[in-house]
């Protein structure tokens, strides 16, 4: 999903507020790790 967001942002306007709404502690951990890795 981050890849698609990054690609879209390079070509089009992105919404100012993009919330990833997740179930479970593990999902939050994994998505945060991948977001950090995308820096």
């Amino acid at each position, binding site marked *: 999903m981050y890849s698609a967001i990054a690609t879209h942002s390079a070509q089009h306007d992105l919404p100012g507020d993009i919330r990833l709404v997740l179930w479970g*502690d593990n999902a939050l951990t994994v*998505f945060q790790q991948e977001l950090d890795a995308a820096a």
Partner: protein
Amino acid sequence: MSWRERVTLQQGNIAECNTEAVVNAANSELWMGSGVAGALRKAGGSVIEQEAVRHGPVAVGASVITTAGTLPAQWVIHAAAMAAGRPASAESVQAATASALALAAQHKIQSIALPALGTGVGNVSLTDCARAA
């Protein structure tokens, strides 16, 4: 502002989000069964599904937009990350995310909530979903 600064992560029920749009983890038939789709239909009413299936079936990776019934959001963007009854993939998650964002841009939507597409019955791992692809 970079794309990363626009992204926030939260735990909870996407059906309760008060963003302009919420994204449904849809299948290509646009039926709303279990998981995220079921939660959105339960909270927002079957009118959402009735409107969605009038647009279907769609290609895997495509998205359609409907009104949101009684949800706090104004719009539901149904992002088809999988064929009905079939697994999703990192590529289909990426395509569905991209098409959902494109629809949001067309409709000048400024706030949007997305679930982890394809990680329920689609069986994509959380890591593959987050990266996609």
